[in-house]
């Protein structure tokens, strides 16, 4: 079964996508790593960012973490400004 997840974007990823929330169509048993692959395919400039933190339900998520339909997912890139 496929699922559509709403993903919150921050920093440069938000600038790349041009919006702060993007719907992502993924398979039912998709992982964090699948989500990143999907985003990099949809928005190629994201592939150039070496570290992207993914948070699921308010916690740092490992690449193998499975995603479910109601998860709150955030993509957090490093930010350099000061």
């Amino acid at each position, binding site marked *: 079964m496929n699922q559509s997840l709403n993903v*919150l974007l*921050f*920093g*440069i990823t938000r*600038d790349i996508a041009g919006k*702060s929330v993007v719907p992502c169509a993924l398979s039912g048993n998709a992982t964090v790593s699948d989500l990143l692959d999907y985003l990099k395919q949809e928005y190629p400039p994201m592939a*150039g*960012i*070496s*570290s992207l*933190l993914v*948070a699921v339900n*308010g*916690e*740092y998520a490992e690449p193998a973490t499975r995603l479910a339909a109601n998860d709150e997912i*955030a993509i*957090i*890139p*490093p*930010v*350099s*400004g*000061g």
Partner: protein
Amino acid sequence: MTTTLLPIELKRYQKHLNLPEIGQEGQIKLKNSKVLIVGAGGLGCPVLLYLTAAGVGNIGIVDHDVVDISNLQRQVLYTTNEIGKHKAKSAVAHLQKLNPELTFDAYTVALEYSNARAIIEEYDIVVDCTDNFKVRYLINDICVSLGKPFVYGAIHRFEGQIAVFNAVLDPEKGQRGPTYRCLFPELPGEIEIPNCSDTGVLGVLPGVIGTYQASEVIKLITGIGEPLKEHLVMLDLLNVSTQKIKVKRRADAEEQARQGLQHRQQVAVKTNEPSKISVQELANRLMNNEEVFLLDVRERPEYELCHIDGAVLIPVSMIPNNLKRIPADRPVVVYCHHGIRSANVIDYLFAQTGRTNLYNLTGGIHAWATEIEPEMATY
């Protein structure tokens, strides 16, 4: 170490003393503490103002930069007549007036591998208010190796991040919280993620994020509340939303920091400082019709406002896709507004191509306009 407050301090800190959570005991802890602020820019200004007002006894400020008119939109410590003066020294002059009882040390150098350990060693807590990844990772790696906590803040357009890294979680077990590398293991290339000199930033944003950092420092020193030792907070001013993300320390946090420092040591041995060229020397070379490729890496509106005759515009973000346009057979002089973005581009080009025909124009187009072409527009 002091164990008492002077009568004048009892008056100055009355509103802290009235808080049972702080009281005399907390105020004495603040008085005895040593805090280093790295970067006296947008984030550094509010951190410095509030820690000075709060009575942090010893405050160190590292910043090699001078005040520029474009800083004044958000760097609220400085005044228009201080343009061109060292930020660290101007900051101390203001802060001493605010609180003459405190000790300030101004370091008008860039924090780098060769000096970071000696400077940081002197302090209990570091506040990361820098504007580039290189120094952020350096602060992380040195603090992890010295066992010091650091309070992190970073800004992008309308949003900011705050966290406390490498802080003691359980004093009995000596357990520490996550580090910056636990969130973002690898140092990103400087041109991968734009900084505020490229993208712009809402002036009030560093004020908000910096005051959060100051608050975290005070909580760490006095031991009150719950500092962000295991959380990253993201704050978006446009819709006033916050996200609080729980982060764990990775088992290899120390090893990553150690490798980071080892790598810097090797690089320091292998490569020289990037080549520089002064505006005067460039002017001489151009006058002698020497073949030089002038590369302007600013954004298009900046280029349209002013540029050096014959310069080719490739904004920082476009560099990776335009490597072929940069010649290898003659000197390439790279410039931006003040010489920071161009230095990053040279680092990137060196890493990607190993080119050694790259020269950074010292002081950027601003220096060129001041010294060579006074009729040129400045900004």
